[in-house]
């Protein structure tokens, strides 16, 4: 499994038709950064859209010619001969609207003011993302995706695709997702947001013009988030109660390995991620609730879906536990959709969906083999 898609090239698509968002706000113009791998077949039926989670982006596989160490975040899943096989599928990675990796977002320059959008960038939802992604599909001439795949918040987009554009998705691969956030999930997101919002360097979201970034807030938000991505077992295995210096210091410096790890992750994240994008992504998570307009009836939410589904969960994921995936599966069963469900035994918590795991990858590979047979045979 050493083959890679090789050199990835970032592309930009520009959309001049105003996009009306769920909030009622209108984006007159926007850009989406995306990458593609593999070859679109003659009837344009072999495309797979990869939707990203909270901190992801369009660079899902391969590396850049001028930055060989910058490897795509799902490179173990996507490539020649890999579960999402770029020898058979035309794979698209896209950076979501409101992101900070090339697509129009809070850190982009607003044409009206010549300054970064900052606090004036509207809140976007999963529905808005899917709408914007559909326009990208239009530009690429793709009427129907062979598959839409995503983990976590990406899985929510895969689901939303089947509600918003039932005829445009043959298969939805919904991994480590949930039909909506619980109060506990929202609570974690709110603490993370508060860390950013109360950072003196946040400046109400307009920190760009002050030449600062709310690094402390972003760092805390990431540290908290990171805890929820891991499992108790994984943390115990990796760090346990290990001390960096081997003995207690009786002070408040970094002593335990887990403290060191979390701070490192927080610092790294704060050095490249945009605080406003973090706020926006967590809000999109909180708002996602397709059953809401049906009085909480998830079965009704799925009644418009026409896709076949593969739903995957991980045993130690407590952020979106297997029971949450079962809610999705049950709604699909009640609607008599074709669905298969795999519960993967893994120690890595929510992050498992990003890990290389033989059985997990076998499930995805086997499912997509069938899909490839449908669209090419």
């Amino acid at each position, binding site marked *: 499994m050493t083959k890679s898609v090789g050199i990835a090239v970032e592309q930009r698509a520009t959309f001049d038709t105003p996009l009306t968002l769920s909030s009622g706000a209108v984006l007159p113009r926007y850009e989406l950064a995306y990458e593609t791998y593999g070859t679109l077949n003659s009837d344009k039926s072999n495309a797979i859209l990869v939707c990203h989670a909270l901190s992801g982006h369009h660079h899902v596989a391969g590396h850049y010619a001028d930055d060989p160490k910058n490897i795509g975040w799902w490179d173990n899943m996507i490539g020649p001969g890999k579960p999402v096989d770029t020898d058979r599928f035309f794979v698209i990675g896209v950076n979501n609207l409101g992101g900070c990796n090339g697509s129009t977002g809070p850190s982009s320059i607003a044409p009206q003011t010549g300054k970064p959008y900052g606090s004036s960038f509207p809140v976007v939802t999963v529905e808005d993302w899917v709408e914007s992604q559909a326009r990208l599909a239009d530009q690429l001439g793709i009427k129907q995706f062979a598959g839409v795949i995503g983990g976590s918040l990406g899985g929510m987009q895969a689901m939303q695709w089947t509600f918003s554009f039932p005829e445009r998705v043959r298969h939805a691969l919904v991994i480590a997702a949930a039909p909506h956030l619980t109060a506990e999930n929202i609570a974690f997101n709110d603490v993370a947001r508060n860390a950013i919002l109360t950072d003196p360097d946040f400046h109400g979201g307009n920190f760009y013009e002050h030449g600062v970034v709310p690094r402390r807030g972003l760092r805390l938000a990431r540290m908290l988030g990171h805890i929820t991505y891991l499992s108790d077992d994984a943390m115990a295995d990796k760090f346990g109660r290990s001390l960096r210096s081997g003995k207690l210091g009786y002070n408040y410096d970094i002593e335990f390995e887990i403290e060191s790890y979390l701070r490192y992750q927080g610092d790294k994240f704060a050095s490249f991620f945009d605080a406003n994008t973090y706020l926006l992504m967590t809000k999109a998570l909180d708002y996602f609730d397709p059953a809401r307009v049906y009085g909480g009836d998830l079965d009704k939410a799925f009644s418009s879906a026409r896709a076949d589904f593969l739903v995957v969960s991980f045993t130690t994921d407590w952020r979106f536990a297997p029971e949450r995936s079962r809610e999705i599966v*049950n709604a699909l069963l009640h609607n008599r959709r074709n669905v298969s*469900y795999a519960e993967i035994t893994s120690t890595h918590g929510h992050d498992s969906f990003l890990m290389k795991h033989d*059985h997990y990858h076998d499930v995805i590979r086997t499912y997509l083999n*069938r899909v490839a047979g449908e669209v090419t045979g």
Partner: protein
Amino acid sequence: MSAHDPVELAAARPDFAAIAEWIAQGASVLDLGCGDGSLLRFLKDTRKVRGYGIEINDANIVACIRNGVNVIQGDMESGLSGFEDNAFDFVLLSQTLQATRHTEPLVQEMLRVGREGIVSFPNFGYWRNRLSVLRGKMPVSKELPYQWYDTPNVHLCTLHDFEDFCRDFDVTVLERRVMTGNGEVNLLPNLLGSTAVYRFQRGI
């Protein structure tokens, strides 16, 4: 011929053919403990059924997906709570009854989510099994391939046992097929039949 050729499969698994005969074209089916999905695939090919399997084993999940059948990973005995009442025309339990722990509640659940239940199981009353016990040994055969210390079969029964069970728990047997190898057994079925297949519904 492919591994999924219906003719070949029907010959190899006579209980599959018996089950298929009872199932109407286009019926909805739930297969409990569906293994690698062979039966569902067979019913899909020969009866155009629409259905799902429930299976707990990881390798079988992959095999089902490869077979092109819907499979839900889970323990069928921890409840079919995700399924609504009368959601299926048929609920199947193929060569699995004897491996269920809470057999009675499971059969009741089958008849809650399905209009009819179909089970197939190895007949412990088959003469070869009786002979083996008579000789003082637990039977090991094609139908019962396990050693006593390493077997999933915790609730083996005979035809008479199963029929008593149905009477005691208000289950109405609609049809029965007994076979040995590929041959149908009509004479002394509890003695001469190695495999039994029953179709049943809630008591009326």
